[in-house]
């Protein structure tokens, strides 16, 4: 079974530039998550989708971050404009159902904002 795919794996941008990350979840997984993990901390949920609907985006900085999951499969997370404090690993995860189920994480995208 193929795992969660993410691209790019690494990205370096200057502050005020924009960047986009892509995620392809495990086939058949209805729930998709985007997490931000700053060095030395646990993953922080940014947004959670159930199929193509948003379940929770309470911690997403909506003035600069946006995410979509068209057709309930792939998802894109965008940051515009980026700030220095956005430097982190962005993890995508998916699970079969909405709650009480194992989340499978992708390899992540390491973003450095200079």
């Amino acid at each position, binding site marked *: 079974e193929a795992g969660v795919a993410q691209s790019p794996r690494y990205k370096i941008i200057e502050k005020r530039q924009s960047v986009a990350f892509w995620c392809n979840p495990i086939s058949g997984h209805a729930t998709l998550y985007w997490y931000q993990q700053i060095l030395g901390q646990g*993953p922080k*949920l940014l947004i959670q989708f159930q199929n193509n609907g948003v379940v929770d985006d309470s911690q997403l900085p909506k003035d600069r971050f946006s995410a979509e999951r068209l057709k309930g499969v792939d998802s894109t997370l965008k940051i515009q404009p980026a700030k220095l404090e956005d430097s982190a690993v962005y*993890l995508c995860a998916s699970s079969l159902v909405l*709650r009480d189920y194992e989340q499978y*994480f992708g390899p992540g995208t390491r973003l450095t904002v200079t």
Partner: protein
Amino acid sequence: QQPVQSPQAVILREGEDAVINCSSSKALYSVHWYRQKHGEAPVFLMILLKGGEQKGHDKISASFNEKKQQSSLYLTASQLSYSGTYFCGTVGAGSYQLTFGKGTKLSVIP
């Protein structure tokens, strides 16, 4: 609200046991445990639902005391492969959001 993990770090010799604790100030529906090795993605270990049941995964087990809103992860006869950072994640009653703690770094040495 972020759960609190203790200890922050622990060093073990192969074969020794360890306990990692996770506590929350809010009513919990479930507790999740993940392990993350350096430079890799977190990997699922187990989920505990309210009801106080204990679960096991090879030589790693966990308990969940819903009244105290606490969970503990038990690692017995540690192996070098157990090294990594262990995260507990909690889901509050009526919520779908998984909130992770800051992690416990476990190092197993020969």
